[in-house]
């Protein structure tokens, strides 16, 4: 039957027709049918392979992607990349940013790797491909593609109910709002943009400063104190004003972003240690230059200063008004928060202003790391400190001390202001007490979570300490294990640190008489060394279940490594004859140990070859030491089709086991047998000490292991004598 050849146009026609049919399934039925048709001269799979080959990709940064490199005076340069469509930002190394800029669609990834090598002298192809993969995944490269996986995940994710949202809020104490950008733009466009003009800046600065002077004047008269507005109603009014204050503060930050044509990713409301607060995700500000970034940080407290200034003017104008004590407390609270915000020792606005000003973006992290690690090391070794280190140390110490101090001041301050609310609610009956408890729960929520984390961490540390103490008591047998592993022929090339690591992870396993360590067919999990007792290796016949003892293991013998190497099931059962103790090394430790030894090629080769030999029936019963002996007396040989491997009548000097390929056994010109993978030949001449009784001629390319007479006598002869291996009978080998 002949099939009609379809042109690519026909395929398109079929698929498009199917796609156009409303409501009909198109994938995979119609598409699969269409693609299954033979096409004329189109190598779809080759094309697909080229498309998916990352080194052939010509990456092109999307037109709207922004890359910015920031050069800092201390040499701690960094770069940022922004995807405005998803409003995501990532910090890059400078070389990564420069490489990203070269992604204009003209160079392949392979060429970029070469460029990177020429530019930096560093042939780190993985770093370049990782960067390209990352940029493509995060939508920084063109063509912009639909993320089907994400779309699918979004589509099938159940919409959260109101109850779910309330639960989420109770857990996180935070509500996110994605529409903040439009809201802030409205404020900027309709009302506040004049404040960013020169006149606007002067007016607001004068207002903020004169307001502060007005507050000092009012405070100097001594008419009010912060504890004066202590009634529950006053406290509630202050809470509401505090809410307005944080809103204004965050609006200040957000307005700066909008002014510099950046966007607000999200904003929201949160309960920050019981206090209602707004927040703004200002991550787009990371793309700003240093000056605008400092201004963005400063605008939050500055906005608060304006509000506090307005409050101070009201106090000055209406000193006898009934609301004056509340306004005074509001202003005092406001100035306290501004002061706290601007102190660069806490990670608040003042800190970010300082970090930007001195061009150390990670100042706090670096200083804390310094006093935790480097400082003690230097003190112990009596090494000198550089100026920068002294600065980091002083900053860290003062920062920690100030953090503790500010917590104490905050407690005093908030107690003075809101103590009235607490006592009022407590004395206001059952309902208000419940309200107080709910409020307390909100306030204490983060503290309770912190306490739970602390308990968990302490538990983990105690468990680790227990393990450490137990480990000390196990030193003697671990040293013994290390010595025994060191004495094993397979591991004698291992470096000491690897051996020591191995010994540190070894387990002591006890086996009762008759108990199997593992069974034939089990998944390999460990490598073992016999410490005490005797064990036997048994092979179970798959059909009858009869067992044959292949070998006995005693102290110093090892087993289980080949199955681990080949990731194959256990080929035999190992059972304890009497009470036995074993050192067990788990699979991951064993793999790591071997991976660390790959630098020693002979070791790796030996293990691989040993695993290969063990796969062959002629050598499957041999232990590690016997396989090592085999390797010492044999080698892999190959033969081309038609090549005679053994000549009839010649002196028998070797035994052969075929790994792959076929050969004919010919006696006096007649074919008597065909050999294939797993077969062996040449043993008759060695066992009976007679000339070769037949010729063996390769009929396909052959790979075989050739074992010399000495090796045969030492290792394999016994297997033939015990009947574990049998000389061939005259029959044709068949698959």
């Amino acid at each position, binding site marked *: 039957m002949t099939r009609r050849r379809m042109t*690519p146009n026909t395929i398109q026609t079929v698929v498009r027709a199917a796609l156009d049919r409303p409501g009909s399934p198109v994938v995979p039925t119609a598409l699969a049918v269409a693609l299954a048709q033979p096409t004329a001269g189109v190598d779809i799979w080759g094309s697909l392979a080229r498309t998916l080959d990352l080194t052939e990709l010509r990456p092109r940064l999307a037109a709207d992607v922004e890359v910015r490199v920031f050069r800092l005076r201390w040499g701690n340069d960094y770069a940022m990349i922004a995807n405005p469509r998803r409003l995501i930002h990532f910090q890059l190394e400078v070389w990564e940013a420069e490489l990203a800029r070269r992604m204009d669609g003209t160079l392949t990834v392979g060429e970029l790797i070469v460029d990177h090598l020429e530019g930096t002298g560093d042939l780190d192809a993985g770093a370049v491909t990782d960067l390209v993969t990352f940029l493509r995944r995060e939508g920084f490269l063109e063509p912009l593609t639909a993320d089907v996986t994400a779309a699918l995940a979004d589509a099938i994710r159940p919409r959260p109910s109101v109850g779910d949202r309330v639960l989420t809020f109770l857990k996180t104490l935070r509500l996110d709002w994605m529409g903040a950008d439009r809201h802030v733009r409205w404020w900027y466009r309709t009302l506040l943009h004049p404040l960013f003009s020169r006149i606007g800046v002067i007016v607001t600065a004068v207002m903020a400063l004169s307001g502060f002077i007005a507050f000092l004047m009012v405070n100097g008269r001594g008419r009010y104190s912060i504890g004066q507005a202590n009634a529950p109603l006053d406290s509630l009014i202050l809470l509401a004003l505090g809410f307005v204050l944080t809103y204004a503060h965050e609006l200040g930050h957000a307005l700066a972003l909008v002014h510099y044509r950046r966007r607000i990713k999200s904003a929201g409301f949160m309960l920050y240690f019981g206090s209602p607060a707004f927040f703004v995700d200002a991550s787009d500000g990371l793309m700003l230059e240093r000056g605008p970034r400092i201004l963005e940080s400063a605008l939050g407290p500055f906005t608060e200063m304006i509000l506090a200034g307005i409050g101070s003017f009201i106090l000055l104008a209406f000193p006898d008004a009934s609301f004056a004590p509340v306004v005074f407390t509001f202003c005092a609270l406001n100035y306290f928060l501004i002061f706290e915000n601007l102190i660069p020792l806490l990670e608040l606005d003042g800190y970010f202003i300082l970090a930007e000003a001195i061009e150390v973006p990670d100042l706090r992290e670096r200083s804390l790391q310094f006093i935790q690690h480097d400082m003690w090391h230097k003190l112990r070794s009596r090494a000198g400190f550089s100026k920068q280190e002294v600065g980091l140390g002083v900053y860290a110490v003062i920062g920690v001390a100030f953090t503790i101090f500010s917590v104490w001041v905050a407690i005093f301050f908030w107690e003075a202001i809101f103590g009235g609310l607490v006592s009022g609610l407590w004395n206001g009956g059952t309902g208000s007490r419940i309200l107080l408890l709910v409020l307390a729960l909100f306030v204490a929520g983060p503290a309770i979570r912190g306490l739970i984390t602390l308990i968990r961490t302490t538990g983990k540390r105690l468990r680790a300490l227990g393990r450490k103490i137990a480990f000390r008591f196990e030193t003697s047998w671990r040293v013994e294990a290390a010595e025994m592993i060191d004495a094993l022929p397979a591991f004698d090339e291992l470096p000491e640190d690897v051996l020591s690591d191995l010994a540190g992870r070894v387990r002591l396993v006890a086996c009762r008489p008759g108990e199997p360590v593992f069974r034939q067919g089990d998944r390999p999990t460990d490598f073992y060394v016999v410490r005490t007792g005797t064990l036997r290796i048994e092979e179970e016949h798959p059909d009858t279940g009869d067992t044959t003892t292949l070998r006995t293991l005693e102290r110093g013998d090892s087993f289980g490594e080949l199955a681990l190497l080949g*990731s194959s099931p256990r080929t035999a059962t190992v059972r304890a004859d009497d009470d036995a103790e074993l050192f067990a090394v788990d699979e991951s430790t064993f793999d790591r140990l071997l991976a660390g030894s790959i630098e020693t090629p002979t070791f790796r080769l030996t293990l691989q070859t040993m695993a290969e030999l063990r796969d062959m029936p002629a050598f499957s019963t041999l232990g590690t030491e016997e396989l090592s002996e085999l390797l010492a007396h044999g080698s892999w040989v190959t033969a081309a089709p038609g090549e005679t491997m053994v000549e009839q009548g010649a002196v028998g000097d070797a035994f052969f086991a075929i790994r792959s390929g076929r050969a004919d056994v010919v006696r006096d010109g007649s074919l008597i047998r065909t050999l294939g993978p797993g077969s062996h030949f040449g043993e008759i001449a060695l066992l009976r000490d007679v000339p070769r009784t037949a010729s063996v001629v390769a009929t396909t390319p052959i790979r075989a292991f050739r074992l010399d007479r000495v090796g045969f006598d030492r290792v394999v002869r016994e297997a033939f004598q015990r009947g574990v291996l049998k000389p061939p009978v005259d029959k044709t080998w068949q698959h």
Partner: protein
Amino acid sequence: MDCWHCRRTAVGVCRFCGRGVCEDHAQTEPFILELFGEPTRALVVEDALHCGACTPRPDPIPLPELDM
């Protein structure tokens, strides 16, 4: 068939690539069974078996050869 990761007996086959995978290494991913016409609707399996070794591309691959 054995598990791609640990060589134990596989209990299933990855819906995306066909690798065998055991219970311990089985993962799940949403899988599109059928797509229907305008507006596009999909019949999906939310927890199709995934081996964790293959990486289904989230974006369609251009094959301009089919546009001839």
